[in-house]
Each structure stands twice: as structure tokens, then as C-alpha cells.
């Protein structure tokens, strides 16, 4: 959510820069995004450590009577999400060569993989034998995966908004220009970095919740 705000914000600012400032300053948006993701990562780190603390304080973990987690579906989901990180990188490679069609193809594919992941997550939720309030393990399971799922959703929305913008062709004074190109790919890179972030968080989550 916040990522999308700053995305739009900074693009507008850049255009303002050309309009009225004396001189443009270098583009710091990627730096700002990474700083933001460090902060976002700290929320997850806090939640992970809380999870480990609950786990270490409990006499038995998961508490007695918790049904065992199925590994098959989340395993496939993990593979899909990890693969999507490679897919989205292809988009970055494409746009560096000014290939908007390639960008659209790879971003479309990434969004699809993200949606499949979310679908798999919902399917898993609906087939689990414990609910949010069953016990401490169940509560942490749902909140952690849910909070991550929220980030995946935001990531998918970011990717879709880049796709939406990539089709718009701004007809300037003299010539037509694409929204994204070799020299204007902040939106693409930002979405990609965010997506990698979501991916890394999932790997840690998967290890914590399913494997440990």
C-alpha cells in the first residue's frame, strides 16, 4: 500500500522537478524504497521473534492436539513463489532493452503466479483442522501467514498497476513515448524489489512454521 503511494508520489515529483525547480536532483526513490523495506522487514522480524519466544516458553510445541501441517501444498506454493522471483527478473532484463512487450509478458506471468500462491494459501486455510483461536500455535500461524499474504496481495497489486501503466502511451509534444523504457523503469524495479522482499520473507516463514 505504502509502496504504491510513494511510487506515484515520486513520479509526480520528478515531473515537477523538471517543471519548476532550478535543477533536478538525482533519483533517490530506489534508495528510499529499500529503506522502507528494511522498516517493513523489522515488523516481520518482530513477529518472528515473538513466534520463537512463544515456542520456547511453551512446554510442548505445537501444543498437544494440534493436527500436523500438510507439507505438499505449501511446498508447491513455495516453489511457485521462488520461481516467480526469477520470472519477474526477466521483466527487468526486458525493460533494460526497452522491450515493453517482454515486460508485460513477464509481469503478467509473475502476477499470475502470485495469484496462484494466494489461491493455494486460501485453499490451505479452508482445509486446516484448526482455527484462529484454537491455540497459540494456530493463532501465530494464521497471523504470520496472513500478514505475509497481505504483502503478497500488495505486491500483486503493484505488479498489476505497473502493467496498467505500461500500456498507456503518453502522446507528448512531438513524439509518442512509452510509459516505461530503458531510462524510466523505476516502477518496474520497485515492484521487482518488493516482490523479492516478499519472497525472502516467505522462505523464512516457511522454515519457521512448517519445517522447524
Amino acid at each position: 500500500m505504502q509502496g504504491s503511494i510513494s511510487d506515484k508520489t515520486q513520479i509526480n515529483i520528478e515531473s515537477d522537478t523538471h517543471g519548476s525547480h532550478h535543477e533536478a536532483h538525482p533519483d533517490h526513490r530506489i534508495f528510499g524504497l529499500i529503506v522502507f523495506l528494511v522498516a517493513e522487514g523489522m515488523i516481520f522480524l518482530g513477529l518472528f521473534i515473538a513466534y520463537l519466544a512463544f515456542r520456547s516458553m511453551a512446554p510442548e510445541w505445537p501444543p498437544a492436539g494440534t493436527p500436523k501441517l500438510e507439507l505438499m501444498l505449501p511446498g508447491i506454493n513455495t516453489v511457485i513463489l521462488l520461481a516467480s522471483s526469477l520470472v519477474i527478473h526477466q521483466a527487468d532484463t526486458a525493460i533494460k532493452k526497452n522491450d515493453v512487450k517482454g515486460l508485460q509478458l513477464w509481469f503478467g506471468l509473475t502476477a499470475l503466479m502470485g495469484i496462484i500462491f494466494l489461491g493455494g494459501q486460501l485453499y490451505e486455510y479452508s482445509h486446516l483442522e484448526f482455527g484462529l483461536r484454537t491455540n497459540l500455535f494456530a493463532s501465530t500461524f494464521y497471523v504470520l501467514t496472513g500478514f505475509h499474504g497481505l504483502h503478497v496481495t500488495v505486491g500483486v497489486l503493484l505488479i498489476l498497476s505497473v502493467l496498467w501503466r505500461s500500456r498507456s502511451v503518453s502522446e507528448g509534444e512531438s513524439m509518442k513515448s512509452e510509459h516505461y523504457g530503458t531510462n524510466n523503469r523505476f516502477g518496474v524495479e520497485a515492484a521487482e524489489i518488493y516482490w523479492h522482499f516478499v519472497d525472502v520473507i516467505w522462505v523464512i516463514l516457511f522454515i519457521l512454521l512448517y519445517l522447524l
Partner: protein
Amino acid sequence: MTAELTIPNQTAPEDDVVIHHRTWKDYFTFSTDHKVIGIQYFVTGFIFYIIGGLLAEGIRTELATPDADLVDPSTYNSMFTMHGTIMIFLWIVPAGTGAFANYLLPLMLGARDMAFPKLNAVAFWIIPPTGLLLILSFFLGPAQAGWTSYPPLSLLTGKVGEGIWIMTLLLLGTSSILGGINFFTTILKMRIPSMSMMQMPLFCWAMLATSLLMLIATPVLAGALILLSFDLIAGTAFFNPVGGGEPVVYQHMFWFYSHPAVYIMVLPFFGVISEVIPVHCRKPIFGYGAIAYSSMVISFLGLIVWAHHMFTSGTPPWLRMFFMITTMVIAVPTGIKIFGWLATMWGGKINLNTPMLFAMGFISTFVIGGITGVMLAAVPFDIHVHDTYFVVAHLHYVLFGGSVFGIYTGIYHWFPKVTGRHIDETWGKIHFALTYVGFNVTFLPMHVLGLQGMPRRIAMYAPEFQGLNQVCTYGSYVLAISTVPFLINAIYCAYKGKPAGSNPWNALTLDWQTTSPPEIENFEVLPVLTTGPYDYGDTEEEEKELTAV
């Protein structure tokens, strides 16, 4: 927004007066000018300061007598909860980071604005509606569990108020993180090319350390509040022992933010003091590098001391030792700063004007707060006075004697810069005297009350404490009255004060090398560094030259 940033047509050459003045209407817009945003932060913060202050006066009036006769005890609980929350999250954090850093950083670094101006405006505009939401909760049964909101107590005292409290903090935390991104990026990336890190004014170093804490610590509080809101609304039991949860985990997460929050609230003012003292003593700052690096060390150590708030929470002894040692160690970089300031004053031509008086007031009260902090770091002593008025005295010496004195120091120092006019010195000194006396009369006796065992956060107390409590209450009235001369003086002088010129203090940092008030994009031509930020009077001639300008 384009319209605001556009500079009105080139001014005619004969026009010496700055004509790019803001009108009052600009301050009610989604402006992206860092100077407008800085003032928006300050004025908003000050309004909440008055609200929080009135709550404090209510608390003190209630405590003038041992019985709960002014308000009933649960209203009292809400009053101190709201007082703490408003003062921390809606006054000191926005005023310190939001107001001072936004106004000063680009000016000091020679930039035309912050790195992300619109994000900056978003960060500010989160605050007023959120503050109103918190005030609104007064009428819906406000939170009663203190600003720490420990479960399970916070889960038992009314869902609506507590829910609003959690939402308020999440929103203000978001604002704070967005601000932190901006400060961090601006300091690292927006300096004029001729300025290296070691040539930055010390306020920028202080804000670098502060922004790191905002970015690293604030999100963890968000994590704790998310879990707490699930406990409150969805009926989970993360922190509720009844369902197998662990309240202590909340305490760890809460203090992982809320101890660094103390440094978020005071580090910017360490920066302010480092700016003010060399200017008004006409001497180079003593130990630039030591003061700069000690900010970073405080920032790091500030992240590993949090459990000293939890010595009575069943924390294992070895862990208590660790946190006791780190807490005591953090007094070292703080002491380095204090000695740096004192050594700067030593042998300087001290001009005892209002900013300097407040700066000296800051040092004297903050040292007391710092020393009681070291006392509280000692486990055996802390266990004795935990949750007594000794802690209340300590934290007010740090947050009022430190932060609020720092805010006033900064206001009096930069008033000519912001308004282009001098603030009246006589009334400034009256304000200082009333504040200093009122503050000490209010909070000094609380040390004694705490040592005698008077518990905090309770509307009633044993009759033998009444004498000192009445002293505190009278002091608090003086403190309340002290705000009146300041407000009248500041508002009057902003419009009718003596014109100050662009650099009335003959200061060397870049913020003083432009017009007062600074024009819309700060500098007509981007400045080039010719001196260090504090090269005052190294030789007699140099100083004569400087003051002759």
C-alpha cells in the same frame, strides 16, 4: 502543488525585500514545502501539547488531596493514559523529528527540499486526523491501561477505547516511519557536493541517529500492536495467560520500540543544543567528532537496553545483568556530549539570551534525569522504586527537562530565521524563569515521594504524602502559566517583532546563509562551503570579521 512550488516571476532587481512570503492559508494545504510542513508539525504538536498539559493539570489537581474527589478513579486512569500518549506521540515526537528536522535539515544541508516532498506531506497529514480520533475516544470510553497498555490489563478495560488507542498508535507509527525514510535519505543523499559527512552540522548527525531508530524500532511496536489488536478484537490469546499466551512477550516488543523512543524524543534536541551553544558562546564546538559519533553510539546502544523497564517482570537474573550493564554504558556517550557542551562554554563569550538560558536549563535538568536514569539501571534500586513516583520524576526530567527545554531552545534560536523577526527577550526570560522554576517545583519533590514509596498511576494515596503532593501541584500551575507569556510573545513577535535580518546571530551553518524567512526553494544560488559549521573566533581577527558582517 505545482503552483506552490513555482517561483513567482523573477523579482525586479530593485526589489530588496523577499516577496515569496507564505500566507496563512498555505499552512492548511497539502504543501510539499519542507518549511511549511515543519511549521504544520510544530503548530499541530503545540495544540496537542496544550491538550496534554490540561490533562496533566487535571491529574495534579486530583492529586492535591489523597482522596479521589475531583474525578472518579477510572476517569483518572484515562487521564494519565491520554496524557502520556498525547505528550509522547502527538507532541514531542512530531515536534522534535517532524518540526525541527523538516524545517532545518534541507537548510543545513544546502538542499532545496527533502528527498521525498510528497511523502513528507503524507506523513504530516496522517497526524491531525489521528490526533482527533484519539481525542474522540474521550467520548466513547477512552483507554485506561496507561501509555504502555500492558496486557492483560489493556484487554479488560473497554474494547472501544483500547481499539482506538491501538489504531492511533499504528497510524502515528506509520507517519513516523515515513518521516524516518525521508530524514535518512535526505541526510545521506541531499547534501551539497562540497559537504562531507564530517562537515555536517551536528543536528544532522543527531537526526541521522534518530531516523535509524525510527526505522528499526517503530515497526516492532507495530508488530506488537497487531498481535494485541487480535487479542482484543478476534479473541486470540497471544498475550493473554488465560488462553496460554505470554504477556511478557508484549512487554519485550513494546519496550524494544519504546525505549529507543526515548532517544527519538531526545536525540534531536542533543542536536539542537549542539547548534545553539557554539553560536551563543562564540566558540568552536568542543569535540565535533566525539559528539557526532556519540549520537550513533547512543542510537546503537538504545536498541539493546529495553528490558531495564522489565526488571520486575520475571526477567531472569543473567538477562537483568546484561541490561543493567548496557543501560549504564549508555550514560557514557551521553556524558561525552554533556562535557562537550560544557567545554564549549568554558572560556567562551557567553551571551545569556533566551536560547542560551534554555540550553543551559536543558543541560542542568537533563543531567539530573540522566543520573536518576543510571540509578534506575541498577537492578536492586530499580526493584525498590519500580512503579513509584521516582520513575515519574526521572522520566519528566528527561522528557520535559530534556525534550521540552530543547524545543524551547530551538524555538528561541530559530525564531528569527523562521519569521524574519526577533522574539522579545524580556518576555523570553520571564518565560524561561517561570518554566524552570515551575518545572523543578513540580518534579523535584516526586523523587522524594517515590523513595518514600508512593505508587504511580493511582488516583488516591496515603495521607502522609499530601504535603509534597501539594507542592507538586502548585508547581504544575506555575508551569501551566509559563506557557502564556510564550504564546503571546511568539504570536505577537511573529507579526510585530523587530526585523532581524537574515543572520542576527552571525552563525556559520548554512541555514543562516539565506534570507529570513528562507525563500521558497531555500537558496537563490546553492551555497558553497567556505568554513566549517562551528569555526567561530579561532583567532581574534576572525571573530571580529565575523561579527562585523
